[in-house]
C-alpha cells in the first residue's frame, strides 16, 4: 500500500483530502511534518498565498528537499501556487520549484472562480490518464499560475482567460482545482497520482 503524508499546516480542509486518498487505496497520515519515510507527499491548502508561505515556515525547505530528491509530490490549490516564484496576492516568496508567477483573474468575470469547469489535459499528462478531455473539476480560487516554462502545463481551463490548472514535471504534480471535491473524476485523478507514486 502506498503511504501518503498529507501535510497539515493549518490551511483549510484536510479531512476531505485524506478521506479521498484513502478511498483510492492509499494509507494516509495527516502530519504537521514532512515524513521522509512516506512514499508520497500531498500538500493541500486554501486561503491566502502569504499565510500559506508563513504557515509553512521552515517546512518550505523540507518540501523543497523532498521535491529535489525526486520524491512524489501532489500540490492542491495553494499547494500548487506555492511551487511558483511569487504571487500577486502577497509579498511572500514561493518555493520556486516551477518558474513563473501566480496572478489574479482580470476584471470582468465574478471572482472567486467557483464551481465545476471543463479541464483540457495535455497528451501524456499522467494525472489525467484515462480521464476524458473536457471533464469537469471543482474550482475555488481567485488567482492562477502562469508558468514560465509551458512544458510543465498538464492541463488548462477557461474562465475569461485560458489558464494553467494543472502542472507536472517528473515527480512533481499539482492541480489548481480540488480533486477531493470533484466526485468520481477527482478520485480518478488521485488514483493516478497514488499509482504513479507507487512506482
Amino acid at each position, binding site marked *: 500500500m502506498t503511504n501518503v503524508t498529507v501535510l497539515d499546516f493549518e490551511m483549510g480542509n484536510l479531512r476531505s483530502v485524506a478521506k479521498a486518498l484513502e478511498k483510492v487505496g492509499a494509507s494516509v497520515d495527516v502530519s504537521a511534518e514532512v515524513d521522509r519515510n512516506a512514499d508520497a507527499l500531498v500538500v493541500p491548502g486554501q*486561503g491566502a498565498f502569504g499565510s500559506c508561505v508563513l504557515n509553512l515556515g521552515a517546512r518550505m525547505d523540507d518540501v523543497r528537499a523532498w521535491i529535489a530528491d525526486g520524491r512524489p509530490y501532489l500540490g492542491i490549490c495553494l499547494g500548487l501556487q506555492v511551487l511558483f516564484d511569487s504571487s500577486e496576492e502577497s509579498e511572500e516568496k514561493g518555493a520556486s520549484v516551477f518558474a513563473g508567477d501566480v496572478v489574479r483573474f482580470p476584471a470582468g468575470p*465574478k471572482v472567486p472562480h467557483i*464551481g465545476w469547469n471543463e479541464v483540457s489535459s495535455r497528451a501524456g499528462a499522467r494525472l489525467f490518464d484515462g480521464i476524458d478531455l473536457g471533464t469537469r473539476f471543482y474550482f475555488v480560487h481567485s488567482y492562477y499560475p502562469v508558468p514560465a516554462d509551458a512544458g510543465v502545463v498538464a492541463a488548462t481551463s477557461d474562465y475569461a482567460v485560458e489558464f494553467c490548472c494543472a502542472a507536472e514535471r517528473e515527480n512533481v504534480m499539482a492541480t489548481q482545482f480540488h480533486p477531493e471535491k470533484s466526485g468520481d473524476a477527482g478520485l480518478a485523478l488521485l488514483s493516478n497520482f497514488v499509482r504513479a507514486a507507487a512506482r
Partner: protein
Amino acid sequence: MLAKRIIPCLDVDAGRVVKGIRFVDIRDAGDPVEMAAVYDREGADELTFLDITASWEQRETTYDIVRRTAEQVFIPLTVGGGVRAVDDVRRLLRAGADKVAINTAAVRDPEMLLDATLAFGSQCIVIAIDARVRNGSWEVVKDLGAGEVLLTSMDRDGTKDGYDLALTRAVCDAVPVPVIASGGAGVPAHFTEAMTDGGADAALAASVFHFGEMRISEVKAECARAGLSMR
C-alpha cells in the same frame, strides 16, 4: 465553460434532517449523511447543511455529521446556521466543511465576517442574506469580503412561486462575487430563470427535492435544454 450549480439544502436539527423526506430506497431518510450521498448520486453540484439546532449542547452533533459526510461524499459541502464566532468557522472547516455560511442577521459584530475571511480566506466564507422587500426596495448589501453570497428571498421562501428574479438580478449586478439564489423554487423552469433572468451562478432548494417533487437530474436536464452550461 463554468457550469451553473444546483444545490440541495438539508435542514438539520440535532443531527437529524427535518421536513420529512420522501424518497424510495432510503434506509433512514432522517440521516443527513445518507441523504447527502443520495443527492451526490443524483448529480448535486454541491450540498448545503443548514443547522437549525436550537440548543447549544446538541450542536456537537452537527460537527459529527459534517465529519461523517466529508468521509463519504466528495463534492463541496457548505454548512450554515448558528455560526456566530470565528471559532465556529474554524471548527466546521476542521470537521470537513468546505465553506461556512454566515448569516448577517445572526452576527452581532459584522467585523467577525472580516476576521473570518482574513483567517481562512474569502473562498470559504459565504455571506447569507435573508432579504425581504421593505417599502419597495431592498437593504443595501455591504461588501464584507466574503467569497460568495447566498441570497434567500424571505417573501418567496416556501411559496413555490419561483425565485425573486428582480432581487436576484439586483444583487448579482451589485456584488463582484458569485451569487446563489434561494427561496421559491417550485418547478424546474424556476431554476433556469434564476440563472438566466436573475443572473445567479447557482440555485438552491430544499423541500421540493426532499419531497421528491423534482429530481436534481430533472432540473439539470431542464437547465441544459434552456442552453445553460451544466455538469
